């Protein structure tokens, strides 16, 4: 990788003096409240706002307590076709997922690292079933997602945010995708985990055999799971339970996204009416 001369490079082997927060294993006791006071099945409060980036066709910003994600969607442009044989009747979504350099405790590279590229692909797989790709053949829609602050569930937040941004950009869609995540260790489950909870459940606590983190991309209207991403060590019956709950878990988020979209459309109609008066 060539040296970036626009930034002041620190010494090569420098590290942040802080370590990422870890969780007290005592919090795993069933029935106890989580570190931020939530119950195990409780979602964090969501703040969602569409139309935050004026230069983009559509955009959205989501805040899940300390997880902050911004998404911009740009006009369809002609596919950078690598292969002339691949002139298909479908359009494409090009997703670029990036954690900002300052989003975590350790500074990240300003270029995409391995997990940024992986998340880009997972996000694309989650969004594709929701978008009417046949409406823009041979064109690609760019979806740029930037995680400003990462405190767990960033992929799930990105799915919800990108769904709202695509709707804000008037990209034809079948449904509004919603992202959900769940982490668990042994019998304890954390819905919408924070960063510390995610890290703990990925590592696993000694003595608990089953542990892992799920991220689900869900299309509520059609009851379809567009992405089921999991990492950990669990038995298959956990999945069945998770899938049967996903409808109810997503309903709250889906209602919020719909309400916000509706109010955004209403306010844009109202403001255009006002501009007519000015004439």
């Amino acid at each position, binding site marked *: 990788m060539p040296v970036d001369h626009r930034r002041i490079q620190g010494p090569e082997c420098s*590290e942040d003096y802080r*370590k*990422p927060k870890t969780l007290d294993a005592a919090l795993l006791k069933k029935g106890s409240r989580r570190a931020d006071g939530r119950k195990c099945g409780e979602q964090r409060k969501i703040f969602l706002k569409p139309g935050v980036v004026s230069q983009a066709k559509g955009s959205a910003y989501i805040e899940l307590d300390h997880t902050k994600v911004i998404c911009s969607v740009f006009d369809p442009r002609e596919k950078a076709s*690598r*292969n002339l044989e*691949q002139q298909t009747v479908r359009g494409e979504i090009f997703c670029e997922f990036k954690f900002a350099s300052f989003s975590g405790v350790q500074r990240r590279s300003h270029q995409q690292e*391995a*997990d940024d*590229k*992986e998340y880009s*692909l*997972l996000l694309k*797989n989650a969004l*594709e*079933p929701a978008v009417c*790709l046949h409406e823009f053949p041979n064109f690609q829609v760019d979806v740029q997602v930037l995680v400003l602050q990462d405190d767990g569930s960033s992929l799930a937040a990105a799915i919800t945010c990108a769904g709202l941004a695509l709707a804000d950009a008037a990209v034809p869609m079948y449904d509004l995708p919603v992202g959900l995540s769940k982490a668990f260790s042994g019998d304890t489950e954390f819905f919408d985990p924070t960063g510390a909870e995610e890290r703990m459940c*990925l*590592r*696993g606590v000694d003595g608990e*055999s*089953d*542990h*892992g983190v799920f991220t689900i991309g*869900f*299309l509520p209207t059609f*009851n*379809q*799971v*567009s*992405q*089921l*991403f*999991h*990492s*950990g*060590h*669990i*038995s*298959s*019956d956990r*999945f*069945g*339970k998770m*899938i*049967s709950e*996903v*409808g109810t878990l997503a309903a709250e988020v889906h209602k919020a996204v719909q309400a916000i979209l509706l109010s955004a459309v209403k306010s844009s109609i109202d403001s255009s009416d006002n501009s007519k008066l000015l004439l």
Partner: protein
Amino acid sequence: MADILLSEAEKTFILHGVRDNVRNDGRSCSEFRPIELELGLVENANGSARVRLANTDVLVAVKCEIDNPSSNFPDEGKLDFFVDCSANATPQFEGKGGEQLAVELAALMSRAYQTRESFNLSTLSIIKGMKCWKLCIDVLILECGGSLIDAISMGTKAALADTKIPKVSVIGSDEGSLELELADEADGREEPLDWHHAPCLVTLNKLEDSLLVDASAEEEACCAAALIVGVSPNKKITTTSIPGHGSFLADSKVFTRALNLAVDVGVKLNTALEAAIKKHQTLKPPPRGFLD
């Protein structure tokens, strides 16, 4: 995966066969194609394996390097996956064409091996906080014929079984300078890794109501959605992912059936792979040409 163009008639033919649990080559929906495995091909690597799944050909090599452990996990080694989609496989992989697929496959493999239960990274530590082994697992795709990730996961597990880590001892710790010494020939130069819990990834392709295991490239072109499941020998699931633009109905029965099939097939695959590796290590087949 490489694109195959099929006519409607061909797709219908495959669909009708699958409904009766018969596929184009006579297999049932939950059968794998014949698998060939070869260990220890690459001399310069610490371990290597080649897997041939019908016409999917994958070569995996493991090289060991001494590295500094990360500060978050000072008593653990590192595992690094790199997948190279060679232009030999299909002309679409020329230049940067195969990069996206390579990234996807490498990420999937890292996820499958992420937990301690799949691969215990603390066995790779040499000096806590200072030196550890880094296993660079390089996958070369020679031919693409469907079920790439299945072949890659089998190849990785076999290559890890073939890997011998040099025994290293620490000598001389005056003034903070440490020296590492390789063990003598007499003491046993190298030791094997603990690879027995490594997962195998199984791809399930959904065609109407049936789930196909090890789909050929033609069958993949007909299927609406796929589910990749990483299964370890003790019936646990290490990773799942839904690749491509398909989606599944959020019905727990559908998923339970799919995952139970995946676990079933995965455990059998793991058992068969272990048996084949043991046989290869004890019998030492006669040398053959490299791509024989």
